[in-house]
């Protein structure tokens, strides 16, 4: 079994062997002098200086050099490389090194070990063996294709740094498979995954197959302790000031701890627009979530950059959390109502829409026939409340406005149902009414929960709209290109959608007043209505933060966008027929400018590492193969005995250090006995007042 070193760089410390030699040669010059009454007679004796520079005590020198060498070797963490299982012949191996660069690899105890392991793999290859380097997190990048130039591979490893994205072993293994598949003969192929083996990264492995002759191994670089503390989220609330009092911003944060040995004291710091605005000393439990509420601060004008940080631990990347609180704006919603509308028929609708902020909605009642381009300008959405799409110029203006991005929501009620109103602009036609008073009313049935409108209701066990009952509703007939988002329990469409240009048109059959059902009395009424209108307007509430790796659509207002990343790197996304997008790779704040990166930004978004990366729970190396194709499983030998694990098991360093201590004791004995010890004792009497 060959001896390799996990930290070979420390071997440079063997250069320290010259230290005992120099000390030995210069010892007489620097040691405490032996007082002698007079050198009068000694000075008459001819003494050659060459003799003084000779090594005069070789055994002692060798003993001291051995102490230094043993110490250096111990710190370089030697390990006897486990014998490979019937590996391929030398010079025929094809090794793809998958180096995990996800956020969790930034752990202080992980990344140096991972780098050393990857380098040790390359250094252990024979001449003629080919090696490739692939860096992966949620995506994989081939840093170095298969090459026999091992120095190039080492350089490629040196270029890789841990990022902020999550882990997907599947992405890396697929990239390795693609790389090896290009080879005419994959015999001797090996995929070596250097990772902390986070369990959360195993999703996506299912269904993977590797060529039969390819061997997959995992090099475990995980830390001994999986304990971690992370800031996982921020919640903000605007507090409206009364009288002359300013509006304030209340910020609370969520902190998760996992696998700590005991409670941890830390300090949470709130920074608002670059200024420290509050701190909290807290004691976190070893496991579980905690919440910290900061004192409300004065709400600055415009978008607010909020940062919450805690004292750094071994994984500092998740100890800081960024968020952007958007500026508060008020948008107009035009409510087109029929002439015969009862006074309180839209009461619930209007109150629901006007409640809430981000954005604040202002309802303006309109006669459908009065809609024109001027009226529609700057409007967020148009709600046709149980009234047909207007014709003539109003209809044309409305159609043009929707095509350019406007949002139109048609509420189909008794009037539209009884008249069977048809309009090409709507994704469906109301044909009659359904009376469910006989069976205690209908409820919502099949619902597309993945639709953004229902985002607030995801995760519920029952119907997204709860127990809302509908006694009379319009029977919708969807158009051919319409998308049915929700249906009643009798199969009748409840919500239809169609895209017109870049705008959205929706038809809703769920009665929104309190006479045809009890939906307005349900707690789901308000978030549903706001979601419905905001989605139609394409103005979904901007998230407070994005997760690293997410794509971000550049605001359409930017014609020549320049995006400044947290690292000050400038990105210039291409604006074509589709909206420009930027992949948010770094944690921090991305800022978009028009034309050049100066002046007021058009928008700012906050980016944080993937929350699941903070869970350092490790999986067994063998678990990586679960779900990989049957053929490859048979042909693959999983070696959990990685170099690091082997080093941990063998603990050669401990033996070397013990040996060094023994040799040190021997050195002490040697130097204190015999003539060496006598030399130290027979010295001249020291001057009075000093030790003899």
């Amino acid at each position, binding site marked *: 079994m060959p001896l390799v070193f996990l930290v070979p760089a420390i071997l440079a410390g063997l250069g320290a062997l010259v230290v005992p030699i120099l000390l030995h040669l210069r010892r*007489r*010059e620097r*040691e405490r*002098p*032996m*007082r*002698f*009454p*007079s*050198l*009068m*007679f*000694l*000075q*008459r*004796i001819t*003494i050659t200086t060459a*003799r*003084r520079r000779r090594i*005069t005590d070789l055994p002692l020198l060798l003993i001291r050099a051995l102490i230094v060498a043993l110490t250096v070797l111990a710190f370089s963490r030697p390990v006897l490389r486990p014998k490979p299982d019937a590996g391929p012949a030398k010079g025929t191996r094809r090794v793809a090194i998958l180096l995990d660069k996800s956020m969790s690899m930034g752990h202080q105890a992980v990344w140096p070990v991972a780098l050393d392991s990857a380098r040790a793999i390359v250094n252990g290859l024979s001449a003629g063996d080919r090696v490739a380097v692939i860096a992966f997190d949620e995506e994989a990048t081939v840093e170095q294709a298969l090459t026999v130039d091992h120095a190039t591979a080492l350089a490629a490893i040196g270029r890789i740094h841990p990022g902020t994205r999550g882990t997907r072993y599947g992405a890396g293994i697929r990239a390795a498979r693609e790389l090896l598949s290009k080879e005419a003969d994959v015999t001797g192929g090996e995929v070596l995954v250097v990772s902390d083996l986070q369990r959360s990264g195993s999703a996506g492995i299912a269904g993977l197959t590797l060529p039969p002759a390819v061997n997959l191994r995992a090099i475990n670089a995980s830390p001994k302790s999986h304990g971690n503390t992370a800031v996982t989220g921020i919640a903000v609330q605007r507090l409206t000031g009364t009288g002359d009092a300013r509006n304030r911003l209340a910020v609370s944060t969520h902190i998760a701890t996992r696998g700590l040995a005991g409670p941890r004291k830390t300090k949470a710091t709130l920074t608002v627009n670059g200024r420290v605005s509050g701190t909290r000393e807290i004691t976190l439990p070893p496991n579980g979530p905690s919440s910290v509420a900061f004192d409300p601060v004065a709400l600055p004008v415009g978008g607010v950059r909020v940062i919450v940080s805690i004292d750094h631990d071994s994984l500092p990347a998740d100890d800081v959390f960024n968020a952007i609180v958007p500026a508060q704006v008020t948008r107009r919603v035009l409510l087109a109502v029929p002439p015969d509308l009862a006074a309180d028929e839209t009461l619930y609708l209007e109150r629901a829409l006007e409640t809430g902020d981000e954005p604040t909605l202002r309802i303006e009642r309109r006669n459908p026939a009065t809609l024109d381009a001027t009226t529609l300008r700057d409007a967020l959405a148009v709600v046709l409340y149980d009234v047909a799409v207007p014709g003539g110029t109003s209809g044309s203006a409305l159609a043009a406005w929707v095509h350019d991005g406007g949002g139109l929501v048609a509420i189909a009620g008794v009037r539209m149902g009884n008249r069977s109103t048809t309009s090409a602009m709507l994704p469906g036609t109301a044909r009659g009414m359904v009376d469910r008073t006989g069976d205690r009313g209908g409820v919502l049935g099949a619902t597309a929960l993945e639709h953004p409108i229902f985002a607030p209701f995801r995760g519920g066990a029952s119907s997204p709209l709860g127990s809302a009952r509908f006694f009379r509703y319009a029977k919708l007939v969807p158009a051919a290109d319409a998308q049915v988002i929700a249906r009643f329990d009798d199969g009748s469409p409840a919500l239809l959608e169609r895209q017109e240009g870049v705008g959205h048109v929706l038809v809703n059959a769920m009665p929104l007043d309190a006479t045809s059902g009890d939906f307005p009395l349900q707690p789901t009424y308000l978030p549903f209505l706001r979601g419905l209108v905001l989605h139609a307007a394409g103005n979904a509430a901007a998230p407070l933060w994005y997760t690293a790796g997410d794509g971000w659509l550049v605001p359409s207002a930017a014609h020549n966008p320049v995006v400044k990343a947290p690292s000050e790197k400038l990105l210039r996304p291409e604006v074509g027929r589709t909206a420009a997008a930027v992949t948010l790779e770094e944690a921090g704040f991305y800022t978009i400018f028009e034309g050049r990166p100066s002046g007021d930004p058009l928008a700012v978004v906050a980016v944080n590492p993937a929350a699941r990366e903070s869970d350092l729970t490790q999986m067994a190396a063998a678990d990586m193969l679960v779900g990989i194709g049957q053929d490859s499983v048979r042909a693959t030998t999983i070696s959990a005995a990685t170099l690091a694990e082997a080093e941990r098991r063998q603990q050669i360093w401990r033996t070397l250090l013990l040996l060094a201590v023994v040799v040190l004791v021997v050195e002490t004995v040697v130097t204190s006995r015999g*003539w*060496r010890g*006598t*030399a*130290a004792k*027979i010295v*001249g*009497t020291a*001057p*009075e007042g000093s030790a003899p």
Partner: protein
Amino acid sequence: MDNTAAQTFIDPKILGQIGDLSLLARAVVDGFLHGMHRSSRAGLSLDFAEHRPYQPGDDLRRIDWRVYGRTDRFYLKTYEADTNSDVVFALDASASMDYGSDGVTKFDYARFLVASLAWLAQRQGDRIGLVTLSGDTVDVVPPSTRHLNLMLHTLGRVKAKGPGQIPLTLEKVAQLRSRTGIVVLVSDCYEDPAVLRRALGGMRSRGNDVVVFHLIDRAERDLPWSAPGNFEDSETGARMPLRPDDLRKQYQEIFNGHRAELLRECGRENIDYSAIETDQPLDAALRTFLDLRLMGSRVR
């Protein structure tokens, strides 16, 4: 007390544990004298010899008041075998004296020796004086029969430091004395023998009896070390990296040659030279001194 016990008592290592020089000197001398057979060498006599003028430091009790009544001058009566002569000690207080490989330094030994000799001389009625030159400081105790305590105090106070200045010390002795007597030089004699002879010869030519006690430490005689080391000169601070094993033979030859040269040079001037090793009892030195004193008693 038998002879062996007395010699044991005056072993330098034991004396080194006695802090009071007065007590030490008395103990040494008493032990030494009690261990000897009675001898006529102690010979005190009351035979009148002559009158001599009074000199400062003379015992007032020995003034002949009758002669004073007649002549109105002070005269002292002297007797045959009277030991009232000057004994001046020249103590080498250079830094090289502050060396001892076996606990007692040469300077300690020298102080014991001088104190003991002074006590012995005091017992015999001699006037005792002291000159030391330590660095730039000269300590002088004029000869007197009453200066024993002052002398012991001076001995206890003086520190060995600075370079060796034997000729200069002897020059101070010459300036101090107006009468002939005994000059006792206690030194490690790190000096050119010819230079030493010239300085001592000057004393001798004035009619003084001169005794040289050459103190030698065993280590400076044998150079016993084996390990290489950096040797430092006590007086000059100069350092020399040496391997004693390779130099021992040459060194011992030079050292013994130096002793032989000293003996030869002193012999030329009729100077008593006595080499004393500091691990030896003091009785040899006392005996040497007493022999000389007996001889000197014949000369007033």
